[in-house]
């Protein structure tokens, strides 16, 4: 016995409290069940790639800040690594370590934002976990301010190193953060991941299998949550990652819970990496080239890095002029949206939001 009902098409976004920016979904609902999803992107398109092709290599660094604006450091890092490969220069050791520390701090900050919104998306009071996460992220941002004078749009890295050495007050602040952060992470575990309601809501929901994830070329925590131990930091080390030891976190479920849980565990690993960098960093120069303006010989370069959200890389083609001929951005957020429909169809309205959050994408990076 069944009742004839008509599906409802609902536009979720671009203005919706939890679509992570101006993201729009055309969702076809049968009651509360999702029948079809169509992501609509492009509301934040700023033409970053074309802007980059109009600017000198060193000026593009400031544009990369604005791609994934919750993880500017890693954007900088991906871009300058590609540039360094293009003009073939070596970064001094201290510069490498500083970059690694900054990138890992940024990873912690980015994951904190992702995990902080988790509880809000599940429908808890929008401020609880978020405020706790932002409180800790604030300390990271304070450290970024010490490093480079800005908190979000950092422009910290330069081609050939970082722009300047860390000030002396940075190191005690980092030490304090490293000492206190595990306690706060434990608090977040208790608040979010051990709660039965959270587990009931997210376990076995929107499962992505390992094969599906690989086929869709997903990377980052989403891929690792499906059980694939692929981490570019371990597989193709860049900067100082070949000098540090850390575990590649994987989970087996591939569901919403595991995607967040992998992020939470990666925070732990990031702290471990920073700890080692803090121990191993030695005196020395932080930057090898001092010129803002250069003309690389014609060629191309692509260096992938493990950004908080997955593999990020800038494919640069040089024609010998002062600006890149082509700058293609391989952004993890955009590719994370590939499996969107497969993830959501068959689940409920309430699950859409959580699954969306579990991808932890950023519209600045999706639309570029």
């Amino acid at each position, binding site marked *: 016995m069944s009742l004839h009902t008509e599906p*409802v098409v*609902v536009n979720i976004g671009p203005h*919706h*409290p*939890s679509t992570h920016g101006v993201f729009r979904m055309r969702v076809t609902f049968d009651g*509360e069940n999702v029948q079809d999803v169509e992501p609509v992107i492009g509301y934040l398109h700023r033409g970053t790639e074309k802007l980059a092709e109009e600017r000198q290599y060193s000026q593009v660094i400031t544009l990369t800040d604005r791609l994934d604006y919750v993880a500017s450091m890693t954007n900088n890092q991906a871009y300058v690594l590609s540039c360094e490969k293009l003009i073939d220069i070596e970064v001094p050791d201290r510069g490498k370590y500083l970059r690694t520390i900054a990138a890992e701090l940024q990873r912690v900050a980015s994951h904190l934002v992702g995990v902080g919104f988790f*509880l*809000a*998306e*599940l*429908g*808890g*009071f*929008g*401020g*609880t976990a*978020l*405020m*706790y996460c932002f*409180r800790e992220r604030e300390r990271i941002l304070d450290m970024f301010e010490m490093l480079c004078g800005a908190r979000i749009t950092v422009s910290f890295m330069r081609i050939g190193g970082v722009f300047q050495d860390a000030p002396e007050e940075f190191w005690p602040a980092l030490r304090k953060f490293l000492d206190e952060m595990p306690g706060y992470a434990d608090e977040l575990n208790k*608040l979010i*991941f*051990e*709660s*039965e*309601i*959270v*587990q*009931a*809501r997210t*376990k076995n929901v929107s499962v992505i299998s390992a094969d599906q994830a690989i086929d869709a070329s997903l990377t980052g925590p989403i891929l*690792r949550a499906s*059980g*694939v*131990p*692929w*981490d570019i930091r*371990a*597989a193709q080390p860049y900067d100082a990652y070949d000098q540090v030891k850390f*575990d*590649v*976190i*994987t*989970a*087996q*479920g591939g569901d919403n819970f595991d995607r967040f*849980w*992998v992020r939470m*565990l990666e925070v732990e690993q990031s702290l471990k990496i920073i700890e080692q960098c803090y121990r191993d960093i030695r005196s020395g120069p932080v930057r090898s080239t001092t010129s803002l303006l250069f003309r690389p010989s014609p060629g191309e370069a692509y260096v992938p890095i493990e950004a908080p959200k997955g593999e990020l890389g800038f494919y640069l083609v040089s024609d010998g002029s002062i600006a890149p001929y082509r700058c293609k951005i391989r952004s993890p957020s955009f590719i994370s949206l590939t499996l969107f429909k497969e993830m959501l169809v068959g689940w*409920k*309205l*309430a*699950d*859409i*939001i959580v699954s969306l959050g579990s991808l932890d994408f950023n519209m600045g990076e999706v639309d570029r």
Partner: protein
Amino acid sequence: MGEALAENIVYRHVYEFILSVFGSELAWLAYAIATFSVVLLVVNVLMLLATFYTWAERRLLGRFTNRLGPNRAGPFGLLQALADAVKLLTKEDIVPRSADRWVFNIAPIVMLGSVLMAMGVIPLGEKTFLADLNIGLLYLVAVSGLGSIAVLMAGYASANKFSTFGAMRAAAVLISYEIPLVMSLLSITILAGSMSLIEVVNSQTIPFLLVTPLAAFIFLTAMSAELNRSPFDITEGESEIVAGYLTEYSGMKFGTFMLAEFAALMVAGAVFAVLFLQGWKWAILPSHIWMLLKVGLFALLATWVRSTLPRLRPDQILTFAWKFLFPLSLINVIALSVQRLLLADEFGNLQQQDMWLMVVSNWILMVVAVPVLIKITNRKSGIPFGESAKFHVGKGV
């Protein structure tokens, strides 16, 4: 009803004053004005409490989330509610073009009305109540059902899909949680031997919270569902359906809805205090103060829950109601009936030592019944209860 009102001190004074001024031939006027003034007093107490609570909840939530909360308007931000009201009043009143204008406008009034009507039977202190209905508990349930009609009206009339989602969810929650709620009220009736709220308070030689913890648990759960409070706030689920049935409301219509919601929480707190915490009774302090403190305790608890727990999915909420709460409330009612049958004397009254016996047996019942029922529900459906906190994490490379 009128007799109970006549005991009211405000009523008596106003009535006598008007009689003394106009003479006894205008008794109907005195009756009308005196009744009106008492009703006005009670309604205003409720409204004042609700507006105060909007501030208090935001301050408390602020502290729970490691912030300060509103503290700018007036000392400690106490005038924040006033500032909000002024802001809402000066906002443009927008009605969507395709909305059913008439229903759209009347919905907030129905919502507030249902809450105010519930206030009619609740004793706010010793000898401070409007009416002592002998079916007070049923009246409360009946009147609170009206609020859901208002939600349905708002959801339909807004001509917005998010609003419709919210309204349908509200209806589903109402139908499901009314039953455990009534069951928990029934267990109170069994204990007190009356449905009058005054009688319920008078019969509480021991707080019923101790005597029947299961009923208190069911009441709190069902009430938070009826009030759209976390973790059952799917009706407004701001992360999913924007603001549910409130999506299209603006200005003071929105304000009326919010006021009604907070007032409903106050009413629920008062009901909880009356049913489970001996109402106005306690030592030393005046009865009204005790009542206020108990309502405040309930509000604090509600805020704490709101700050901590995320929301369940609608299907999980319904499963929770039908497969867990409903059997649990049946067990409780049956257990209490049997206890009363065994323990009551020939006049059907319960002595205090019998009550203590019930305290012991009911706590044992709770400790046994809840885990067993959870196990059964978990095995059968597995939906509302996830696994307990065990993580399976493999390390790669």
